[in-house]
């Protein structure tokens, strides 16, 4: 079992992505409104305002998607993410990480 943390910077892909996840059997997800550190420091802290061009690609808001999933679904999620968003290392459209889950509490068996 893994926890997938997906940072979606281009939020226009959210609906299609969630639909595609449902298609491949992702049972549910928690979606959080989030803001990247680059955007916060360059827009909310005046001394870093000169770095706005440096953080030019950072969206005002992004979505953080949390998915608890079995290991075998992860390659499919990566494939779907590529299909829907066309993301790659350089695009900055999305980033995904997986974290091992030791124990579950409050979940149905």
């Amino acid at each position, binding site marked *: 079992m893994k926890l997938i943390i997906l940072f979606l910077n281009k939020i226009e892909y959210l609906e299609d992505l969630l639909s595609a996840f449902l298609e491949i059997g992702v049972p549910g997800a928690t979606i959080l409104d989030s803001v990247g550190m680059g955007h916060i420091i360059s827009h909310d802290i005046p*001394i870093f305002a000169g770095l706005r061009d440096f953080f030019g690609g950072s969206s005002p808001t992004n979505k953080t998607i949390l998915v608890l999933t079995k290991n075998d679904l992860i390659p499919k999620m990566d494939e779907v993410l590529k299909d829907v968003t066309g993301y790659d290392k350089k695009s900055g459209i999305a980033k995904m990480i997986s974290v091992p889950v030791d124990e579950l509490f409050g979940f149905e068996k």
Partner: protein
Amino acid sequence: MRISDYLKIDCIKIPLNSMKKKEIIKELLTLISEVYEEIDEEDAFKSVIEREKIETTAIGNGVAIPHARKKNITKVYFAFGITKKGADFNAIDEKPVNLVFLILCPEKKANIQISLLARLSRILHDKKLRKKLSNCKTGQSVIDLFTQYEKQHFS
């Protein structure tokens, strides 16, 4: 990264002769360009003023950190000065400024700029440090103060 590593005695002026924002920036840039021939004072001045137009670099509590990123430089240039009286720097807290740090960073090394600005702003949040700094009479005392403070607070 230590601020004390960037402070050079020839690029510290106490007190500054100028009392106006642009003149203070010029005075600090003159210090840098007199020590480092590769720095074009006029060009650097334009860049620093352009940065000031985005948002003020006077972060409050009497501190300003005017700065710019430059394409044609390969290292960080740093100057510091203390004004005779508080100067109007359009500070975010509208208070007059007496401690002015000027930084020029290579354009391609934005990470250094981020670290420097972050370290400097964090250190200058310390009220006691600001008071000690305001009381410094020589460049060496400024360097000693930062060296001692960073040794004490940062590993």
